[in-house]
């Protein structure tokens, strides 16, 4: 009914590099029904108020992945984000382009870095030419094999995860959550024959820069859960190749360091991760901390019943971390 509209204020990021020296926010106020998607509102602004507003979209049904943007500081699909709850929570709707990609104009970003990382993981089946797939019948998988794909095939490549990822922001070597989730999908595909090369490549190719902050999993509109698949890749990489990088050495070192006493041995861990020489490099910092916190050099006490920990390790940690 017409009387159920609300007055919605939009503060939209505007930037045209051809004329603007810096970005600005332009305010638009419209009367809209609370269930109106942010995308629909932006398209109305463009049709009725300001034809110069640039944005990207296609399906308007949360399928194509082109309309991701920052809505009130969160990476969202504009076509499935309703204005009602946003107004209720924030009083207005701030619309900005996605992070971690250069702005081309207004809400349109240059997705080149995102797609470059995607291509870098070679997201296609690599088959053994000696054993081609049968041409006359479909190949089949067991339910257990299918289950290993988990959520990754749902990805619509919207880059909401990429936009939210602090490792992408801080380090150009990090491939980003979506590329790694895609890589996982091929690593567990029983038809793919490059499993080991893929894992060896990514172990040295930025895998361990993931902060496991789960911002990507929270941002993803399709519940692909990239952070959890990145965890899977880490364990698979260690199993395939052993711990060859500082990150994997640290994970394995940590696991070993609580085995003896049941609690973390900070000094032993630093030594394991950095090696004796690297430990030397940390001495200055260690001394600074030690002056205030002398416990850093103490061995932790042993927990009671520590033998239970040893037995759990014996049952579940069959060990594959030495470099192969």
């Amino acid at each position, binding site marked *: 009914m017409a009387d159920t509209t609300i007055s919605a204020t939009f503060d939209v990021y505007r930037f045209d590099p051809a004329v603007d020296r810096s970005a600005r926010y332009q305010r638009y106020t419209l009367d809209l029904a609370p269930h109106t998607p942010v995308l629909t509102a932006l398209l109305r602004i463009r049709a009725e108020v300001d034809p110069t507003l640039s944005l990207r979209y296609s399906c308007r049904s949360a399928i194509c992945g082109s309309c991701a943007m920052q809505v009130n500081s969160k990476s969202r699909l504009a076509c499935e984000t309703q204005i009602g709850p946003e107004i209720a929570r924030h009083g207005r709707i701030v619309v900005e382009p996605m992070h971690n990609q250069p702005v081309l104009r207004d809400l349109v970003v240059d997705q080149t870095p995102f797609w470059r990382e995607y291509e870098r993981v070679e997201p296609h089946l690599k088959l053994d030419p000696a054993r081609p797939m049968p041409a006359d019948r479909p190949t089949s998988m067991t339910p257990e094999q299918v289950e290993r794909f988990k959520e990754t095939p749902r990805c619509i490549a919207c880059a909401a995860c990429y936009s939210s990822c602090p490792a992408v922001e801080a380090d150009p070597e990090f491939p980003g959550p979506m590329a790694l989730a895609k890589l996982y999908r091929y690593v567990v595909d029983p038809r793919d024959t490059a499993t080991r090369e893929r894992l060896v490549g990514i172990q040295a190719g930025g895998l*361990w820069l993931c902060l496991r*902050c789960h911002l990507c999993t929270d941002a993803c509109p399709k519940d692909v859960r990239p952070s959890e698949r990145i965890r899977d890749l880490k364990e698979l990489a*260690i199993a395939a190749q052993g711990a060859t990088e500082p990150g994997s050495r640290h994970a394995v070192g940590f696991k070993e360091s609580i085995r003896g006493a049941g609690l973390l041995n*900070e000094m032993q861990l630093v030594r394991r991760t950095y090696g004796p020489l690297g430990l030397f490099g940390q001495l200055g910092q260690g001394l600074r901390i030690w002056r205030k916190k002398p416990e850093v050099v103490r061995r932790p006490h042993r927990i009671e019943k520590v033998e239970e920990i040893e037995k759990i390790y014996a049952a*579940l940690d069959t060990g594959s971390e030495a470099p192969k």
Partner: protein
Amino acid sequence: MKFAYYPGCVAQESGKELDLATRWVCRALGIELVEFPSFSCCGSGFVDEANEVLNVAINARNLAIAERAGLNLLTICSTCQGMLTLANHRMADPKVRARVDGALKPLGIEYRGTVRVTHLLRVLVEEVGLPAIRAKVRRPLAGLKVGAFYGCHLLRPTDEMGGEGGGDGEEPHSFEDLLAAIGADPVYYRGRVMCCGFPIQFVKEATANRIAGHQIQDAKSHGADAMATPCPLCHITLDAYQNKAEKAVGARLDMPVFHLPQLVGLALGATPEELGLPRHLVPTEPALARVRPSGA
């Protein structure tokens, strides 16, 4: 109010001031902490990276210890909170459960899945309640602008961590609410729910330090005199490694960083020594000097 107290590794060693402050605050608020010397490390996220099922098993053992005593479990670390909660979730998967049970049953350990894992922050806000805390404040932290820093694993994945606001996209605010209850001025900034960089401190130090530096700069540029965190790993990064973060971002930061119960303790009348404040690498005195005397 009674909990199985899970201090975690850091609060028993280099982060002892967190344990001190927790005990002080719990005593003052009538929260009974029951200790279990057989609790092990939670794996800190690193064991999970190396071996997921092993990580679930050592935490199921911890949870079983609390379950046998009929207690819910109280953590004081965002990462411990995350790992123990994760174990509860993963144990719901029959395949994981079968493997974990296979390792625990021969030791006479069984975890039935009944323990609720909760963090001190949530206990203060949801169980003790802000009105009860407000009533006990003796020295309101008036005038002190504090940037809360939650720590990833307390919050995310939101659907598994039982996020504030029912995971419907609402931003967390319990920490800021608590800060307001003890008289401080909470500062809202983007970095408050971001990562401190700790997980890759050993992977690529320069990147980790830059991430930490950015969060501190963010809090500072929003006017924070101090930061506060419910996670001792964030505390290591933000306090003990702040000198490195300064180098990484090329700016002086001078940002005092409190453990959550230290600020609560100060407001309830504890002395800086009782809360272990002299153990911090970045001096906390400049922040304390900002507190307006009561009645002013």
